[in-house]
C-alpha cells in the first residue's frame, strides 16, 4: 500500500521548469523525508502535491487516486493535509476556531472527536483552546499548525520545515509526536533542513538537487554516503565542534 506516489512530476513556473521529473513514494505507514539545499524545489514539490501550484505534468496519486492538478480544497478532501512553511495559522482566531477550520472538509459530527484526538496529541492546545492563535509561542503555533492539518484526518501529512526557528527541546517533542502520528495511520512526508533530526525518525529519504531527486535510500544508506554526510549532515569533524548543530542546521 502506498499513501503517496509521485511519478515524473514536472512543474513549469513562468517558463522555467522548477521540478524536472520528480519520483517520490511514501508507504501507507511511512515517514519519508526530503533533504536538499535551499531552492532545489522541496517546497515547490509540496505545494504542487497539495494543489497550491497547478499546471504540473506527471502524476500524483494518493491511496491510488489520481489527484494531479486538482484544486487544493479537493486535495485536502482526498486525504492530503499540510503544515506549510511559515505555518500560516490564523492568528486573529482562537485555537479552537483554527482547529474547526482544519476540519472544514469533514462532516460536522466528527468535530468533537477530532478536537479531542488532536488535543490528546498536543495537550497544550487544550489549555489554549480559547486563546488567539497569534498569542501562542512558536512551538505551540507549530503544534497548532500540525494539529489543524490533522483535523482533516489525512492519509498523508506533509510538513515543510517544522523545526524552523524552534528550540531543540521543542523540536525533539514535535519529532517524537510525528512518530505517534504515523502510528495512528497517517503517513508523513517531511521536508527538513535539520537533516540529522529528520533522518532519525524517517524510514526512507530522498535528496533533491536542481529540481530532481539525486539520491534516495534508507537513512543508513544516506549516512554511509560520504558526499551526503559532507553536504547535508555537517560532516563528522564539524559536528564535534558544534554539538547542537543538528538542532539549528
Amino acid at each position, binding site marked *: 500500500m502506498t499513501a503517496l506516489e509521485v511519478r515524473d512530476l514536472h512543474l513549469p*513556473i513562468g517558463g522555467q521548469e522548477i521540478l524536472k521529473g520528480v519520483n517520490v513514494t511514501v508507504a501507507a505507514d511511512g515517514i519519508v523525508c526530503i533533504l536538499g539545499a535551499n531552492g532545489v524545489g522541496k517546497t515547490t514539490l509540496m505545494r504542487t502535491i497539495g494543489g*497550491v501550484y497547478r499546471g504540473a505534468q506527471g502524476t500524483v496519486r494518493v491511496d491510488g487516486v489520481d489527484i494531479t492538478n486538482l484544486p487544493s480544497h479537493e486535495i485536502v478532501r482526498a486525504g492530503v*493535509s*499540510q503544515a506549510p512553511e511559515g505555518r*500560516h495559522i490564523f492568528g486573529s*482566531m482562537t485555537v479552537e476556531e483554527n482547529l474547526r477550520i*482544519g476540519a472544514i472538509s469533514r462532516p460536522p459530527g466528527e468535530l468533537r472527536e477530532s478536537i479531542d484526538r488532536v488535543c490528546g496529541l498536543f495537550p497544550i492546545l487544550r489549555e489554549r483552546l480559547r486563546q488567539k492563535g497569534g498569542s501562542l509561542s512558536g512551538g505551540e503555533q507549530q503544534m497548532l499548525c500540525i494539529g489543524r492539518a490533522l483535523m*482533516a484526518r489525512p492519509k498523508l501529512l506533509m510538513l515543510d520545515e517544522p523545526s524552523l526557528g524552534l528550540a531543540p527541546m521543542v523540536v525533539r517533542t514535535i519529532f517524537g509526536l510525528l512518530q505517534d502520528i504515523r502510528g495512528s495511520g497517517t503517513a508523513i512526508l517531511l521536508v527538513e533542513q535539520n537533516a540529522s533530526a529528520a533522518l532519525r525518525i524517517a524510514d526512507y529519504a530522498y535528496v533533491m538537487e536542481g529540481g530532481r531527486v539525486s539520491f534516495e535510500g534508507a537513512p543508513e544508506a544516506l549516512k554511509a554516503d560520504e558526499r551526503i554526510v559532507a553536504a547535508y549532515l555537517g560532516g563528522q569533524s564539524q559536528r564535534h565542534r558544534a554539538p547542537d548543530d543538528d538542532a539549528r542546521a
Partner: protein
Amino acid sequence: MDAVLLQGIANGLSLGLCYALIAIGFTLIFGVLNAVNFAHSEVYMLGAFAGLVIIQAFAPPFMAVVFLVAAVGAFLGFGLERIAFRPLRRARDEASLKSRALREATLMSSLAVGILVRELAELRFGGDMQPIPSGAMLNTPIAVGPVILTTGDFYIFGMAAAMLLLLQFLLYRTKIGLSIRALSDDLIGALYVGINTDRVIVWTFMIGSSFGALAGLMVGLYYGTIFPYMGFAPTLKAFIAMLMGGLNNIPGAVLCALLIGLSESLAPEIMPTRWVDLIAYVFLLVTLIFFPAGIFGRKAERV
C-alpha cells in the same frame, strides 16, 4: 439636552447607520481580497433603483421589497466578482495573490464596471432624481418626546440592528463565516487548509453587496434621492469610515461611520451647511496623518 441637539443626534444616527451598512460591504471584501471594490457605489445605486422598480411594478409590502433588494444585491455581487475580480485571479501562488499588481488591476476593473453600470443606468433612467410613489417614502413623522422621527428612522435603526446581528451570526456561527474570517486572516493559510477560496470570495461579495444594495434602498426611500450618481458621496464616506476603522475591522468601521454621520448632522449648528461635506475629508486627513493604521487598527496595514 435641548430638542435641537436630540433631533440632530437622531438624524445623525440614521445617516451614520446608512454609511455603516455600506462600509460593512467594503470592509468584508477588503478583508478577504485586500482590494477595494470601487463598484460598490453602483451596487448601492442599483439597490435603490431595484427597490423603486419593484415598488412601481407590484407595490408589495415593505418587507418583501427588502428581501427582493437583498437578493438583487447578492446577485450583483456574484456577477461583479465574476466580471471584475475572478478573471484577474488566475494564479494561485502566494506572490501573485498578494501582489500590488493584482490589487491595482482589480481596483481599475471594478472602477470600470462601476462607470459602465452608472452610464447604463443614466441611459435607461435619465440623470435626474426619480419620482418616488408618495406611499413608498419612509417619511411619515412620529413624535417621540420633543424629537420628531420618521418611519424611515425606525426602519433604518431596525434594519441596521438586524443586519449587524445577522452579520455577527454569519461570521461567528456558520461555516461560511468561519471561512470568510480565515480568508481575511491569512489567505494562503486558507488555501492550505482546504478552504474553497473562490467559493468563499463569491459568498463575501454576495453578502457585502446585499448590504450595500439595502443601504441604497433605505437611503433612497428615506431621503427621496434616487438617481444614477447617488452612490458617489455616501460610498466615499463609507470608504473613509473603513479607513478610519482600520481597513479590516468591521466594528471599527461601523463606529467610524456613526461618528461621521453624527458629525455631519450636528455640524450645521456651528458652521455653514455647505461645509458639511468637508467633515469626512478632515476625518480622513487626520486619520492618515495621526493614525495611519486607523483609529481602531491594531497593526500597520498596507494602504
